[in-house]
């Protein structure tokens, strides 16, 4: 059927739906729903990791293969460094930029190396905002509680307390750097309510929060003349005879040569895993989100946490085909947008946590109440025109300019027509286990941002990631810098690889892949 004909039911039922309130699930119903429909509970997608620090723990098969994968680096490689620095930051997203700026400010010699250009990352795409308890009726303690609930009580309390308490000072730092957060008429920060939050707490820059933060952070990295190495992908870490981290090896993606960097400490800020397309899901993530940091840390002996749980954002675009997987910001639901099935019914409280909303969308689709596309996809409607009906014409355009433009390019006016959505692979809830200084169990190896784990428990609350990046980027940067003054460079070896390879051999060398992946293999093989 013509898409407009299918959308009629959304227009027809709008007024009736506006009078409805949909209660949130009880904890028992919620758990039942998630266990039945959330992709994290699809047992066939999982297998135990065969060896290494998380041996016998389960994760998705796509990641398990990479964790067990072999390195590009041979034992005989010449490890004479081309560069020597105090602090080596790997990754040019929000966490990497924050780490580099703080380490530099604290007086360390810093190098920032990244796979694509500085700033090409997930961070630049964050639309929904950053959770910081600034409203008078809110507090860091309430922020803590909301996050804990969202994470199903599995969050690391120490990490979480640090994050919520440092939030407000992070906002101040960003404002001093020139980030233009939305304001109320009285000059205070404007806050929105996000899914799973009991208080309005999202600070935003229109629907360009990540872009605005990254424009500023990138510019500041350049202003501070921090040494940059772009289009260089980390392919192995370096260790000394005690197993401490002493640098990294990169592959220069322009000339395919290896680059060795000696450092007193390394901060991995390599982000997420969306481009592994776990369980065949499309993703909202950037081109380089291939979980490289997990593989590198794992081979060094760093322990991972919660790597069996991933966030499938409820609203990934399903139509048009060109936008499949791309994020339709949660902001639409925060402002009252309904989710509507093919029968014109709402089926979940749209502001419940992401795992609940995603599970219920999957339920609707599996039970035949979804809308299908001819390319074999399925989804439900997100009633975007409702926002104009509710808050006055022009609301969608004014509050969601980025999203308006995205769909307009394909001839769709989201202020007039609802959008078809289905969960998209969005975020890795877990990652490399860190302490409150962002350090791993491998000395002088720090991990910050999405690549790290423990803070978010089993489901990240929306808007908490941007804050995570800033807080733990800062902590890793400051700790690494403070150590630099009183230590010298360690030996550069790949002894950890010998250990890792011996382990792999014992388990039959079955992975058959080289990791990290670096970039997804999208290029069609033309024979």
């Amino acid at each position: 059927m013509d898409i407009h004909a299918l959308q009629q039911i959304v227009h027809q039922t709008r007024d009736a739906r506006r009078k409805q309130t949909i209660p949130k699930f009880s904890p028992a119903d919620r758990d039942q729903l998630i266990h039945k429909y959330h992709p994290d509970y699809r047992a066939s997608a999982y297998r135990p990791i065969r060896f290494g620090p998380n041996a016998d723990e389960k994760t998705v098969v796509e990641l398990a293969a990479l964790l067990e994968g072999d390195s590009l680096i041979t034992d005989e490689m010449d490890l004479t460094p081309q560069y020597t620095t105090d602090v080596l930051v790997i990754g040019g997203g929000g966490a990497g930029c924050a780490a580099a700026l703080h380490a530099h400010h604290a007086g360390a010699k810093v190098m920032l190396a990244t796979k694509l250009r500085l700033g090409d990352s997930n961070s630049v795409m964050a639309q929904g905002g950053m959770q910081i308890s600034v409203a008078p009726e809110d507090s860091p303690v309430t922020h803590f509680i909301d996050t804990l609930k969202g994470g199903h009580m599995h969050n690391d309390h120490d990490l979480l307390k640090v994050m919520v308490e440092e939030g407000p000072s992070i906002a101040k730092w960003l404002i001093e750097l020139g980030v233009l957060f939305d304001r109320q008429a009285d000059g205070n920060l404007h806050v929105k309510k996000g899914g799973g939050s009991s208080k309005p707490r999202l600070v935003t820059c229109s629907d360009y929060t990540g872009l605005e933060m990254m424009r500023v952070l990138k510019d500041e990295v350049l202003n501070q003349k921090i040494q940059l190495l772009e289009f260089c992908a980390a392919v192995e870490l370096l260790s000394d005879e005690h197993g401490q981290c002493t640098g990294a090896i990169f592959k220069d993606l322009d000339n395919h040569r290896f680059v060795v960097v000696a450092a007193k400490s390394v901060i991995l800020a390599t982000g997420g895993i969306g481009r592994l397309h776990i369980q065949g899901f499309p993703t909202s993530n950037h081109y380089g989100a291939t979980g490289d940091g997990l593989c590198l840390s794992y081979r060094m002996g760093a322990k991972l946490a919660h790597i069996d749980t991933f966030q499938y954002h409820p609203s990934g675009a399903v139509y048009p085909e060109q936008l499949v997987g791309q994020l339709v910001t949660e902001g639409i639901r925060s402002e009252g947008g309904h989710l509507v099935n093919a029968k014109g019914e709402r089926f979940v409280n749209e502001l419940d946590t992401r795992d609940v909303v995603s599970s219920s969308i999957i339920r609707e689709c599996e039970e035949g109440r979804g809308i299908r596309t001819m390319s074999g996809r399925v989804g439900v409607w997100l009633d975007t025109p409702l926002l104009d009906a509710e808050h006055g014409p022009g609301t969608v355009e004014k509050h969601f300019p980025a999203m308006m433009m995205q769909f307009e390019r394909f001839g769709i006016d989201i202020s007039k027509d609802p959008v078809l959505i289905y969960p998209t692979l969005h975020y890795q809830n877990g990652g490399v286990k860190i302490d409150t200084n962002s350090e791993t169990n491998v000395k002088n190896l720090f991990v910050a941002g999405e690549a790290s784990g423990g803070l978010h428990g089993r489901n990240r609350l929306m808007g908490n990631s941007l804050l995570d990046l800033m807080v733990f980027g800062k902590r890793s940067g400051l700790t690494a810098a403070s150590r630099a003054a009183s230590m010298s460079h360690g030996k550069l070896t790949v002894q950890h690889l010998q250990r890792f390879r011996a382990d792999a051999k014992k388990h039959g060398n079955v992975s058959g892949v080289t990791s990290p992946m670096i970039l997804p293999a999208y290029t069609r093989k033309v024979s």
Partner: protein
Amino acid sequence: MAQDNTNVIDQPEVMQPRMVSIEISGKKYDVPEGITVIKALWYTGQEVVRGAGCLGGFCGACATYYRTKDDPKVRTCLACQMAVEDGMSFTIMPPFPARKAIYDLQTLKDPKQDLFNLYPEAPLCRNCNACTEACPQKIDVREGVWKAVFGDFKSVSEMFMDCVMCGMCTPVCIADIAPNLVALYVSRAQGARFTEKPVGLDARIKEIQEGRYNDEWKKLLNMSEKELADHCATVK
């Protein structure tokens, strides 16, 4: 299960993809109609490293020049956000060596005046409007440059909120202005120097420093798992 077609969106282009002829950097290829420009590169067997970043229309890495069939006008787009059509020809834009000024926002004496030291070319705009025409984000770039020069930093910061820093406005400028870099400086100055300080934020920072929440923390962190869960359930 029998597939009924009541809830299926018509997508004839998906059912029978029509192949179209396009030109990539001067070479002819046939690709399925409607795929994005970036996917056309992958489809034709090319490895993409420079030229792809976020894949979501936010980073500007995929800035591309294109022309449609028989139209002399060369346009710009973000390759990850543009569908190919028959007769289209395109080339990804190489990095352009625009000059970025170096500054410390906090120590600038008079940011509106300092603009002319940092970017002395900014007031030399010759009003050709090429930058506006080149912008894939539909920003009125020319107007922005003028507003910057006249000190209306607030308007500039609002106009350039959509700027993905693709840099397509720079190579076209006959006055060697990099409008996006000028606007970024102006926006940052607006944020850091000309925007009201949020008093509520400072108050909250002070509260935390002074230990206003210490008792609550103590209570919370000493709870058993069960007590904590019950307590959390009361917060709605």
